[in-house]
């Protein structure tokens, strides 16, 4: 994610927390990004330099009115039009989501395992992860038979690797180094 999108996201997050309306703002931004992604016409109008900024704004105003968008999000869209940054709305949305998660003390965890985990295993694992990170963990699960056994957890840029594959790799490295 680029540095620019992170700045816009941080600013919007500031406003969202001030207005104490974070959930609605989050939803509206994601809806607008969705609309932009689905309609290539809208995308083209906003990206076209021959369309005046005022015309773009009036288009955006009509759409946001119809969608019942929060004022702050509408203003935010206007600001993006002024700055010619409508092309990175999707990126900003992603940055905004992770920024909101960070401020709410939530981390995303990608949990990979060789076999499907049972519900009790999952809850145990999440409890353990929450203890280690000190944050609330939102888990995503995936299956990866290459691990042979055990699990790996990826949180941000940290990997907790307790798979059989890793143990075997390390054992091989240790034996080879002798």
């Amino acid at each position, binding site marked *: *994610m680029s*540095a620019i999108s992170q700045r816009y996201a941080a600013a919007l997050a500031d406003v969202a927390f001030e207005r104490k309306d974070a959930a609605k703002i989050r939803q509206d931004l994601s809806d607008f990004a969705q609309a932009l992604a689905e309609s290539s016409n809208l995308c083209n109008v906003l990206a076209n330099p021959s369309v005046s900024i005022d015309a773009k704004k009036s288009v955006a105003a009509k759409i946001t009115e119809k969608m019942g968008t929060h004022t702050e999000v509408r203003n935010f869209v206007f600001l993006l039009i002024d700055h010619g940054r409508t092309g990175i709305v999707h990126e900003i949305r992603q940055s905004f989501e992770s920024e909101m998660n960070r401020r709410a003390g939530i981390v995303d965890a990608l949990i990979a395992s060789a076999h499907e985990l049972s519900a009790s295993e999952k809850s145990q694992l999440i409890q353990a992860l929450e203890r280690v990170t000190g944050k609330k963990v939102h888990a995503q699960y995936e299956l990866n038979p290459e691990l042979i056994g055990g699990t790996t957890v990826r949180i941000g840029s940290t990997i*907790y690797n307790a798979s059989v594959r890793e143990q075997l790799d390390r054992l091989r490295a240790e034996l080879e180094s002798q």
Partner: protein
Amino acid sequence: MATIKADEITKIIREQIENYQQVMAVEEVGSVISVGDGIARIHGLDKVMAGEMLSFPHEVVGIALNLEEDQVGTVLLGDYTKIKEGDTVQRTKNIMSVPVGDALIGRVVNPLGQPLDDKGPIAGDQRSPIERLAPGVIDRQPVREPVQTGIKAIDSMIPIGRGQRELIIGDRQTGKTAIILDTIINQRGGDLICIYCAIGQKRSTVAQVIKTLTDSGAMEHSIVVTASASEPATMQYIAPFAACAMGEFFRDNGKHAICFYDDLSKHAQAYREISLLLRRPPGREAYPGDVFFLHSRLLERAAKMSKDLGGGSLSALPVIETQAGDVSAYIPTNVISITDGQIYLESDLFNIGIRPAINAGISVSRVGGNAQIKAMRQVAGSLRLDMAQFRELAAFAQFGSELDKATQAQLGRGRRLTELLKQDQFQPLSVEKQVLGIFAGTNGYVDDIPVEDVRRFEKELYSFVETNYGAILKKLADTKAIDDGLRAEMKKAIDDFKKSFVTDGKTVEAAAS
């Protein structure tokens, strides 16, 4: 070597497997965004340290140099052609370091400390980071012991002390490396450990240097660190820092070492390449803004340590290659201002046969005078004066006008002293002999010898004194000063020798009468 039985190996491996500790690996990773020209940009690695080693797939190592808001710029060491976009990069949590210690002496290594000779792995597991802060002011003391280069012109007029930084500067093919080799060879049997760091040189040249050192028995007190021209710029960039880290080990253990960086112009070019690829803004001659700091932080690590810290020393002899004698280019001026003096070599002098081609007029040593032995200081004072006057007069004498007797005498003395300071390669002289030779020159003993015979005179004088007046050399070596008694003895010895010195089939005295 005792043979190992098959079941023993099995046993060892079985023990290892049984005692294998099951621990969860916690890794911090990032992924490669882009790679090319020895540079990789990486997303992730939130907590990476500046200068940290990173491990890439295929056993490639990288160093994190640029920490930016959303990516990390790294330089890659080794074969980076197999790295591709999306590869996982792991933190190692280690700052770049090299092995140090006595085991390195006599070895040829690359900038990572891996051996390049066929003498097996480097023993010992002591390591030291390649980038370290230089010792502070309280930790140092002024230089007071000499580095004897064995070259008359340098030891007498441009003395180098232990802990000093003396620049060797000159065009290509002026004998810069020759001075270094002579200095290393002259340390045979001494306590000075020499570290030769070749940066961006041809492999054939480096091989030649190593062969010369080996043949002359100088590898026993030397380490060669080499990053040749075919290696990535990153290797060339870290090479002098690695050599310095190896030298610091000796400095911090109360021993003496000297680092030769051959040469820092190539090093600056390698750093420029890396910096431009990392998109740092270019400055003068496209070098990055911190190229001065790059060299000053390297050379500042040369120091004479205080008594409390063992009194060890690390000297530095960096080399700069100029283009057509241009010392006002960016890198030469930088390094001149960092070092404590420079030895300036000129191709004109080299071509008219003055070898070593040292221009004594603009070569200086700002601190080494304190380190000279007293006897050398006594004879070299008048040598420097005589040579300065000679240079001034020589400029006038070129017009060919008639000269008075005093001027002619001065010119004659100058020519003979110039002749006396010539020296063949790989013929380093002991300091006692140097003192004796210069004593003869400055006291007028060669004034009546034909200029073309001066070098033969000098050579025969040494062997004459060695066989007939050995006590003089011994006394010079022991007391390191010339008192009235010794002065009289030296005069007598030289007078004695002149009686037997033959030019044109006659002795000098017979020719005069």
